[in-house]
């Protein structure tokens, strides 16, 4: 039922979604922390920008990605010249698109987690001589892990399902950028391709469920440790 091309798409999707989630996670944590705990000029603007990929039709986001990260675009050229990172028609570009689309979901989940941490504990850690960085690393972050897991699983699921921005930005090159959703889209355009679609959809669901179960398990273990369960 699943041909070689589909198998390639599955592996690629998995890699794209994992990389997107893992790379975006630290940044999401940082932004979430800023939004939850700091006040600074332009905070609401940052908040708005983070939410943009959610509001805009994915095609528009894909187009904006082209404008910013395309080979001819300043940022894209700068990155490729200085760091050798190119996004155009590469799986890295697919990961970028997926990461950006997943970003608002991750930030929001983590932010809610941070807001739930008693600032009194951070104060206590500070009185014990900890720098802000250490307080964050040793107190805030561990206590926010449930939120981080939630954010990661939401992000991963979204990254697995992302279609519009990805295909617009990096097209669907088998083995390089053709993920499960683009494969499904292609199949859907052809009459009678339903069985193959069902196969790919099932794989997507299985992957996301797997991630979900792992994150729930981690969160439960965590809660148990904190004596909440």
């Amino acid at each position, binding site marked *: 039922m699943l041909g070689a091309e589909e198998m390639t798409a599955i592996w690629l999707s998995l890699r794209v979604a994992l990389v997107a989630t893992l790379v975006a996670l630290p940044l999401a944590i940082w932004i979430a922390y800023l939004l939850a705990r700091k006040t600074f000029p332009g905070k609401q603007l940052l908040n708005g920008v983070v939410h943009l990929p959610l509001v805009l039709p994915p*095609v528009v986001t*894909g*187009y904006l990605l*082209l*404008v910013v990260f*395309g*080979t*001819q*675009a300043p940022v894209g050229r700068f990155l490729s010249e200085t760091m050798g990172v190119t996004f*155009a*028609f590469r799986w890295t570009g697919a990961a970028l698109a997926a990461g950006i689309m997943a970003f608002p979901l991750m930030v929001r989940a983590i932010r809610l987690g941070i807001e739930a941490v008693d600032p009194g504990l951070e104060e206590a850690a500070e009185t014990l001589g900890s720098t802000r960085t250490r307080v964050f690393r040793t107190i805030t972050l561990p206590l926010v892990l449930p939120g981080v897991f939630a954010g990661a699983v939401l992000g991963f699921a979204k990254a697995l399902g992302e279609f519009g921005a990805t*295909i*617009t930005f*990096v*097209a*669907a*090159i088998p083995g390089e950028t053709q993920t499960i959703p*683009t494969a499904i*889209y*292609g*199949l*859907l*355009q*052809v*009459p009678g391709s339903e069985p193959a679609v069902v196969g790919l959809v099932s794989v997507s669901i299985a992957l996301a469920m797997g991630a979900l179960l792992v994150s729930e398990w981690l969160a439960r273990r965590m809660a148990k440790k904190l004596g909440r369960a």
Partner: protein
Amino acid sequence: DVLVFAAASLKGPLDEIAAQFDDVTVSYAGSGTIARQVSLGAPADVVILANAVWMEVLIEGRHVIPESVKDVASNRLIVIGAAGSGELALTEKAFVERLGDGRLAVGLTDAVPAGIYARASLEALGLWGAVSDRLAEVDNVRAVVALVARGQAPLGITYRTDADVSDAVEEVAAFPAESHSPIRYTAAITPSDNPDTAAFLQFLSSDEGQAHLTAAGFLPPQPEPID
């Protein structure tokens, strides 16, 4: 009221045509989407697809009245490049040279009509082998234009009607019409028994209707292919 479900690429001229009537509403989407919607009971009175295969599916499923199916326009498949990039010869050498280490943007070659035509033409011209692993396949012809316009891909294959969408691209070559099966925009009436549909379809085929289409770059319907 007449509800028309039409291929998105027709939006420009079809909006103008619909504006001639008080009671015609057009909903645009991809041909595959429209076909599936109509086969699942969409309340469309008229269907205009850019994809003959899907029209066959609708006919077979009795979702459209077979006798009403009618070609309303045609199109040309062309190669676009960045504005000012100059004529392109339809040879392997020219393609390879122009592409450099870039990619050729096309619609999905086994799913999107424009992509299917592109593959047929490339095969017919013996170019397929040279470019088949250099493709950047996208879901939509507009994305092809965007990729070429943003300099992401040096060349792309689209309909002639799409080249106008962006000033940053221009037509650099046109595929011979016989290098692919005819590009057919076919209209049909659904069994909704709406008496007003006839007038709309008629107008579409009228000189005035056709004028709107040709102004947007569409070609008149091609004669029936000889099987």
